């Protein structure tokens, strides 16, 4: 089948079997390999992307059902200010080891930061339930998220255009 997607801001025409899932489409056809595959069952969260503005598991979306959708992947968020804060905090808090869960984790983390600015540690842990990491034991991930949430709660930090502390430049 033919389908149209907007991926990381670019309109894209694709041809795929209806059973192909979105993660494979992104990875194989668009070479966006930052979206990882860990279970293809909707459990691990490694494949999390932003679909029409909300996080979604790309392994559970089939080509047949996402025609017309707008997708953002980790590659499309390199210049995103919230993602920049998260990247900085992930590195500072050692929130990644092998890096395999990391893109999906960041997609979920960004959603938490934007949707739940008041989230506390328990809430953050609960919200991360759909993203598995086998390496870190989660402490660094949770601390990174809490650090970003706290920094955005500080007065004067609300300006999305404010200069960032150099995301891993």
């Amino acid at each position, binding site marked *: 089948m033919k389908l149209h997607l907007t991926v990381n801001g670019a309109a894209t025409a694709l041809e795929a079997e209806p059973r192909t899932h979105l993660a494979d489409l992104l990875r194989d056809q668009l070479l*966006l390999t930052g979206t990882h595959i*860990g279970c293809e069952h909707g459990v*691990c969260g490694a494949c999390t992307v932003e679909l029409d503005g909300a996080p979604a598991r790309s392994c559970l979306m089939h080509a047949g059902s996402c025609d017309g959708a707008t997708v953002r992947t980790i590659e499309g968020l390199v210049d995103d200010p919230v993602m920049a804060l998260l990247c900085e905090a992930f590195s500072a808090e*050692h929130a990644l*080891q*092998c*890096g395999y869960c*990391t893109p999906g984790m960041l997609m979920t983390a960004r959603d938490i930061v934007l949707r739940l600015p008041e989230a506390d540690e328990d809430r953050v842990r609960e919200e991360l339930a759909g993203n598995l990491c086998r390496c870190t*034991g989660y*402490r660094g991930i949770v601390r990174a998220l809490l650090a970003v949430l706290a920094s955005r709660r500080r007065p004067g930090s609300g300006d999305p255009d404010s200069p960032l502390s150099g995301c891993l430049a």
Partner: protein
Amino acid sequence: MTVSGKGVGASLRRKEDRRFLQGRGRYVGDIRPAGVLEVAFLRSPVAHARLRGVQKPAQGLVFTAADLLEIGPIRANSALPGFRASDQPALARDKLRHVGEPIAACLAESRAAAEDLAAACLPDYEELPAVSDMLAALAPDAPLIHEHWSENAFLETKREDEVADLDAIAAAKVRRRLRTARQSMAPIEGRGVIAEWDPRLEQLIVTSSTQMPHVTKSGIAECLGLDEGQVRVISPDVGGGFGYKGILLAEELVCAALAIRLGRPVRWLEDRLEQLTANANCREHFYDVTAWADAEGRLLACEVEAVVDAGAYSAYPFSACLEAAQIGSIFPGPYTLPRFRFRTVSACTNKPPILPYRGVARTGVCFAMETTLDALARQLGIDAAAIRAINLVPPEAMPYRNLVGKVFDSGDYPEALRRAVAAIDVAALRARQAAGETVGLGLAVFCEQGAHGTSVYHGWGIPFVPGFEQAQARFTPDGVLELRVGLHSHGQGLETTLAQVAHEVLGVDPARVRLVHGDTALTPYSTGTWGSRAMVMAGGAVAEACRQLGERALTIGAALLQAPREACVLRDGAIVQGEAKVTLDEVARTWYRRPQNLPREVDKGGLEVTAGYRPDPDTGTHSYAAHAVVARVDRETGAVVLEQYVIVEDGGTLVNPMIVDGQVLGGTAQGIGTALYEEMPFDAQGQPLAGTLADYLLPGASEVPDITIEHMVTPSPWTRFGQKGIGESGAIGPPAAIVNAINDALARFGAEVTDLPATPARVLAALAKVGAA
């Protein structure tokens, strides 16, 4: 540490983070060579059968064992006497010995099409009774998995200290039967292989998600009858290993043979179903432990019958017997045990081969020893901390050789225990218990032998005994320092920590150090990253290579300064005499581009050094830890909540404390999985019962508490910087500490959990057994 704050001891941020955070890591599944054929395997649907043949679909590329006679069997023979060898065919020949065993390789342009092809194959087999439990496997009338064997056992080992007199003199005696579950290591990235044949070099290039590219290369060459030089193995970014990727794969051999045969790249990516069901393969132990103690709790002896479920084949390179060999040699743990009697059996069952998972046998051994100690303490009416304190090797005895010949290098084990207990408000906990709350305190103390070398592995009989570790250090013409090591970093942060080591020795900024690893064509031979060996072994080798490189640079630098060599020193990345200095960049430029300025006495080997390292003695470093846990048990549901988790850990000199904490935390999360959640059950027919991550439960962010780590630092006297192997430590203690906490909580009912994981069902069963449910 160096004044720069970037050398050994610095919590330097990781150099590798940037690419991963931007989604630019490059894992095997991200690589798709032009013209690649994707492989799906037809796998055995049954645990035990005679295979008569395979009916192939009329069209399509399908290969069975009969089509690929060039692949020899995988043989991982233990050198221990009495070992029964198992030939593991890459594709099943006449017998099927576990569910998921590969039968045929099906190739197509896409994985989906290849899977369609596999679904169209019809294997023809005659089912045989399966052996799915290790104790049943050893019964005299059990069906034989390898028919030329006399019993389903790879190996039996023994030690026969006298214990018959102890019943008469001991104040306490306990006996416990304990089990750990079969687990799946379940890295988030599965395995994957790409094989290509390069006709120009006449070389097979295998890109594989492996922890040990050089051993994989040797194994492929061995099984395909190629010269080792005809095989190059590349291990790109690897999404977690934990032992799961420390193996020569049947799938690697099949892909390699097919790439040669077809002249096209061939790729196989393991999916989660394959990972869980065809390869659920670690940790499963049974213990029957008897222990005797005097009235103060001093251990008099332990007698252990242990069975390890080793699965159907001996996996390459660690063999089917590594775990049992470890049980025999590490059961005494950190204690001064005067007598030890054991028998271990590595049982053969209709399950996938067992692999050493982070902690290897230590996790089971620690669980058995520590729960037994608590049982003794309860019988004697003494405190769990007291019984440990009286038995731990005291610091003044270091280095200490125990009764099985293990040599502990350094440390203060009782102090770790004291600090862990001090972090818990024990009085408050006891008050809660007195008020009727089902809460408990659990302790576990253990040491982790790491970076053990030739002498130890030779004694354990594994077919691939590690020797000297080598590293190359060289300056490129622009003064960048390039390090090449044969082991592999897949989360351990070696790109950072080895740069810190180089910085410590040469003063080159870590940002100007590049680590090359994961490619057999570019790096010295190494047995790989496993056994908590990387930081000790590669750290030592890198330091030595950098030291020698520094010597060479000194000769050149002194000549450029027109000063006697003895008057010059290497400091902060420069050759210095008084106020005058020449940077290492300048030295490199001189060697490569202005050789006319080189002194006569220059080393003709240039600015490139390969150096080797092995600690002496090489019996291993012993990091150690005390874990203390407060757990609350819900009497109605059997659910366990971890309220507090404290770790006091001594890893000697920490090269990068942040990364060490990461290793300990990650390991502990896995240990919590072992303790409470993870289990790969098999039914009586040998069918694995957990096929998705919704059935096989990995701990998530809410299941892992905010763990506190306190460090003690007792350098190892035997390693380059005093560092100790610590990568597995976190995964060892949790099952012991958590189950001890649960049993402390249940003690007033007289109930005990003895099997892992301590699921709600097992907790309720333990209560029901004593009529307290």
